[in-house]
């Protein structure tokens, strides 16, 4: 799967040149609390949703959000603008979430990339459209998302909730582009299996 991809640092740099958040970061670097408040207002909900998706705990996610903002204050003067500010913020949040997962001791339970899908039943037996239709209720999908490993859940959130590019997700998760694709591929299969299983009436929420 060694494919060359057309998107790269160059497109990220192009994005950075028109990033409206850049001026805010510069002002934060100069000590502006007002700019901090404005940046928070622009990104807090998304960063919080990202942390909730991974931690499944709104209070812990709020702690992560607070930590992210402290880190932004500390590191604003070192922001180089190679990527969009939002990508930088998600990258900080990614590491803060990992810190929290480490504190909980849960990281090792849920970070498999390639092996998690091993031993899946024949996916041809599951009609994906029927599966997602039947599992249309948000609660059912939520339960299946919760069963994903952390790295898979992160990739799904960033690709489908945040609509980020593969390169941006790779930058946030500090991993190669191929790893992002693999994580999404397996996450998709696992979700299909979970939703198909629920459609068939098994105890998928256990």
């Amino acid at each position: 799967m060694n494919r060359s991809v057309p998107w790269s640092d160059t497109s990220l740099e192009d994005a950075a040149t028109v990033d409206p958040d850049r001026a805010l970061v510069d002002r934060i670097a100069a000590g502006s609390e007002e700019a901090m408040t404005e940046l928070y207002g622009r990104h807090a909900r998304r960063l919080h949703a990202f942390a909730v998706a991974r931690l499944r705990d709104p209070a812990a996610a709020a702690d992560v959000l607070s930590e992210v903002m402290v880190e932004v204050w500390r590191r604003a003067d070192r922001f180089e603008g190679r990527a969009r500010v939002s990508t930088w913020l998600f990258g900080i949040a990614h590491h803060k979430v990992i810190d929290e997962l480490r504190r909980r001791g849960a990281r090792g339970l849920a970070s498999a990339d390639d092996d998690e899908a091993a031993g899946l039943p024949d996916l041809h037996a599951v009609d994906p459209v029927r599966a997602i239709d039947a599992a249309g209720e948000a609660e059912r999908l939520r339960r299946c998302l919760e069963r994903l490993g952390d790295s898979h859940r992160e990739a799904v959130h960033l690709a489908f909730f945040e609509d980020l590019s593969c390169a941006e997700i790779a930058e946030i998760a500090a991993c190669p582009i191929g790893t992002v694709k693999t994580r999404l591929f397996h996450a998709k299969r696992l979700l299909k299996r979970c939703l198909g299983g629920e459609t068939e009436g098994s105890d998928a929420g256990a």
Partner: protein
Amino acid sequence: MPEHDGDRERDELLPFLANGTLEPEERAALERALEEDEPLRHELDFVARLRTGVKAASDAPDPGELPLRRALKRIEREEARTRRPSPWWRAAAIAAGIAVVVQSGVIVRQLYAPAPGGPELLGERTTATDGRVVLQVTFAAEAREAEIRTLLRSLRATIVDGPSAAGVYRVALDGVAPGDAAAIEGAIGRLAARGDVVRHVARE
């Protein structure tokens, strides 16, 4: 979906076709493939519905202003602490701790130095890093000096600067070549794994 390499590659691009972030060339190629591949179209349908479902399933509440207020309060406390003179005993203890750690680093460097550097070797241990790999490390507030010393010695690491106003130290990895990404990641991983001693670590 069949499991040929080409099929897998196309399948892996579907999420980015669905979320509209695919580059034009890849998008065009994938759309051509979709015209001739019914299972791939089914898969795209699933991915698109999954995307819609993920957006609908997000149940994160509005975090409100509290996380920001807590962050600003913490920043204010940290900055006040760096401005305010410490009690003499605390300043002395911190200075002694840093002195021991730096001294340990020098000893380690002397032990592992490829050749005796004489006076130049001592001169290097201030803020000059001479091409060495440098990490930025924040130690946990509750970390003991002995723990920091042991950890840094085990990595052949030396404090070369700090703490900054935000409590960040610059730590040089003496035994690691700048191009040795695996060794650098290994050292960062070992530091990060000691959450009881290291609060944050990143390559400079």
